[in-house]
């Protein structure tokens, strides 16, 4: 390669490396803001500010969905295996809301174990299969018939 081109190539590689590092650092420092939601572990450990508006995400605990006392809202527990807290929501739940599924809720963290949601979004995983396959899996005795999603991307 002739020296001029080599120099240009090196300059571009240098600029890219510098920019890449800068972008990486910015993203790293902002990662708490880029994360769409707090995990139950962060809520329970007190990492999330109490009383603040925020999003939380996790899996709906099996068998935890219930109407609250005045009958207007619905209560359910949200977990990630490392922490669990209760969410209350009044409104229409999305089609894909079900026990064992991942959801993201937007609302206020009233206490460390209690979250008032204004909006509930269903978080779908990357698994697809025909209904028959799912029924067959269920018959074969896989509880919930939910194959383990790839690690780290469960919800």
């Amino acid at each position, binding site marked *: 390669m002739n020296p001029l081109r080599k120099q240009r*190539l090196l300059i*571009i590689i240098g600029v890219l490396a510098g920019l890449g590092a800068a972008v990486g650092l910015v993203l790293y420092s902002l990662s708490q803001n880029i994360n769409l939601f707090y995990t139950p572990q962060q809520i329970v450990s007190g990492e999330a500010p109490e009383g603040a508006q925020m999003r939380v995400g996790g899996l709906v605990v099996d068998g935890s969905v219930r109407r609250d006392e005045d009958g207007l809202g619905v209560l359910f527990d949200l977990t990630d295996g490392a922490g669990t807290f209760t969410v209350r929501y009044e409104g229409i739940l*999305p089609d894909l809301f079900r026990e064992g599924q991942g959801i993201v809720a937007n609302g206020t963290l009233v206490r460390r174990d209690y979250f008032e949601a204004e909006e509930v979004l*269903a978080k779908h995983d990357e698994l697809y299969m025909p209904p028959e396959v799912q029924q067959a899996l269920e018959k074969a005795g896989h509880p919930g018939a939910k194959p383990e999603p790839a690690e*780290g*991307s469960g919800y």
Partner: protein
Amino acid sequence: MMVWKTLTRWYHQLGSPRYFYRFSEVLLPWLWPIALLTTAVGLVWGLAFAPEDYQQGNSYRIIFIHVPAAGGALLGYVAMGVAGLVNLVWRMKMAEVMIKAIAPFGAVLAAIALITGAIWGKPTWGTYWVWDARLTSMLIMLFLYLGVMALINAIPDPRQAGRAAGLLSVVGVINVVIVKYSVEWWQSLHQGSTIKLTGGSTMPPEMLTPLLISMLGIYLLFAVSVLWRARAELLWRERKSAWVKELV
């Protein structure tokens, strides 16, 4: 060594406008029907013959256009970045032409990925849009494509325009990496990848096959679109040269 020699020969041949024009002339008459047919087969298979999903029902069928469009937009940006690098280092005219030829359909595919994703999000997530890392970085990719197109249009001198657009293309490749890994690095509403290059995909073959065919189809359409645009640009730039005069 043989492979390297063949590659460098192709590089120099395809870098010559006249050779590229002749090459595309031979390629296009059968490439565009194949691209059209592949896309049609993939989409019809996905829409009408693939089974529905056990959770999402039929709304998941949007995947057969959403994923190919998103994949095409990403791949197109990488290609544009490579052309940008070649242009900045070797000042190759053909690379300028390629940047200009890639950007429009790349922008269209990025827009399709965003629009179909929003429509899919409503029944699945319960919302059209959320500012999570994947959706936001994909929107930035659309703006980068539009930025490249705007730069080319705004700068009258094609060589300067090519250099500016090349720089934006190269730098924007950083965003491609962010789009790709956004769902792994951060908590997002968007799901992880279904198709994985290493390890198994999380989809049975009766759904995966039409998806892969659609992807191939859209990529081929991208190639056809790039060749057509590159031919137009080459002809216009070389309109004073002997080979074009001979041609018309």
